């Protein structure tokens, strides 16, 4: 196992210790579960809170996006495992500034049930909660079953947009509405070249030959749409764009943002090679690209591979996307 760690059981706790030690100006641990990260300085009183949560191993997702104009708090589980309901409830309490809390996270069964349960737990605290689920991975279910799709890198856009609306003083219903609008306007697809290793498992999550790739694979190694020989960059980018645009067509005059994301090991050099094709395809369709993101925004530790995420904008979404935000991993404005 080519990982730098002490014992697998301590991986997440030590990681979070180091994170808050490195960036005390951004993050603090809240409560005593050691698995809830909140903003170092809580948001304004009366601001709608935004929480997310999910398994570890996806930095900057989820914890990294706690920050101004983004999330207020986050519950974090073991690697690729859901945090517990109690931790989620703690995150909701940390995020609450009296105006209610939006739960904004990915459509994974365990996370959904735990977050629902967390909502039941905080009813006693009189915190109003709403929920928006990200289900952006087009490879994970057919368009007719969109509600079954899993949530992947599209979360980054949803955090940004909901976070900006909350920072601007919108109320819980308004923030929830715009988060749902962003969730509806975002599509992702990924391709993996290699597995990563979950520390507690100690061996690669899946096996894949030295010259193979899997199109449509999920961020925990969930099965994709095909596995075959590694293709040239332009062919990979072309197929990924085909899949996105088939699900959400983009045309003349459309304004879109696009995230070309490394799953971890794939270096930025290769993302730029792919970005040439992404840009040509979108501009070729007559669309304008707003604030492209190219880098590591949602990862699976040392997995090699990429994902593309497309966000179709209207004036409201574009304004919120361009609004300032700040955390240790991303700053706008």
């Amino acid at each position, binding site marked *: 196992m080519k990982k730098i760690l002490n014992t697998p059981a301590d991986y997440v706790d030590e990681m979070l210790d180091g994170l808050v030690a490195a960036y005390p100006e951004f993050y603090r641990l809240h409560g005593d579960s050691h698995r809830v990260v909140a903003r170092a300085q809580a948001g304004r009183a009366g601001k709608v809170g935004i929480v997310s949560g999910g398994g570890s191993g996806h930095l900057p997702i989820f914890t990294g996006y706690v920050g101004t104009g983004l999330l207020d708090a986050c519950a974090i*589980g073991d690697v690729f495992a*859901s945090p*517990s*309901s*109690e931790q989620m409830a703690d995150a909701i309490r940390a995020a609450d500034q009296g105006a209610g809390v939006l739960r904004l996270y990915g459509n994974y*069964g*365990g996370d959904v*049930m735990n977050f629902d*349960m967390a909502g039941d737990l905080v009813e006693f605290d009189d915190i109003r909660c709403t929920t928006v689920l990200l289900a952006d991975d087009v490879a994970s279910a057919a368009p007719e079953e969109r509600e079954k799709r899993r949530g992947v890198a599209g979360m980054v856009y949803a955090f940004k947009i909901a976070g900006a609306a909350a920072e601007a003083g919108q109320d819980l219903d308004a923030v929830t509405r715009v988060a749902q609008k962003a969730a509806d306007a975002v599509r992702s697809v990924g391709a993996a070249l290699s597995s990563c290793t979950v520390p507690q498992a100690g061996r690669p999550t899946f096996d894949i030959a030295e010259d193979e790739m899997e199109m449509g694979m999920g961020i925990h190694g969930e*099965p994709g749409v095909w596995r075959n020989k590694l293709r040239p960059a332009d062919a990979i980018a072309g197929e990924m764009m085909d899949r996105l645009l088939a699900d959400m067509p983009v045309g003349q005059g459309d304004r879109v943002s696009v995230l070309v994301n490394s799953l971890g090991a794939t270096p930025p050099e290769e993302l730029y090679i792919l970005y040439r094709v992404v840009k040509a395809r979108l501009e070729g369709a007559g669309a304008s690209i707003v604030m492209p993101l190219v880098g590591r925004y949602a990862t699976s530790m040392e997995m090699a591979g990429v994902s593309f995420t497309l966000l179709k904008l209207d004036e409201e979404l574009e304004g919120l996307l361009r609004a300032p935000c700040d955390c240790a991993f991303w700053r706008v404005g």
Partner: protein
Amino acid sequence: MSDFTTRDLDALFEALVTKMAEERDHLCRLDGVIGDADHGIAMLQGMTAARDAVVALPEGTLQDKLNAAAKGFLNAVGASSGPLYATAFLRAGKAAGPRAAMPREETPALVAAMAEGIAHRGKAQVGQKTMFDAWAPAAEAAGSDGPLPERLSRIARAAEAGAQGTADLVAQLGRAARLGDRSLGHPDPGAVSAAMIVATMARHFEDPA
């Protein structure tokens, strides 16, 4: 016939921990085939925390203890089974009520309450290849007539049959749902552990006399 008391409940949770400890690796292996190989860990951790919470309340009512079990299970487990069993225990607590003992004739209602909790939390229906495919037939058997020992053995057999039957289903909820047809031929780990839990409960609900 003696009542089912909080002491009996303590003993039931001890037995559940023992069973899950024995079956931990087996359940992980089943989950490894169509899920993420942690179901045995989750169930053992959850039941251990539930047992600890239950015995830590020697003066509590049946409902207090089951509520504590729910909370203990929930906090200990990050996986799907956490909220599912936490909700199940909360419902069982409500069914048992704030009393120190209940007539054994009423204990099958606890099985039915747990099944409802799981369906509520998981939004599960029969046939989707989940633990509900063991809990649902158990709950139905719990509603049947006849002497308690017969009802209890019917409950246990129904859960077991339901669990076995999941091998012939295509998963539609949970991690295994991503596999489509590839989940065929493999029993659902949550249903298998559910049958074990139901059987243990049925044994403990019977009058020891």
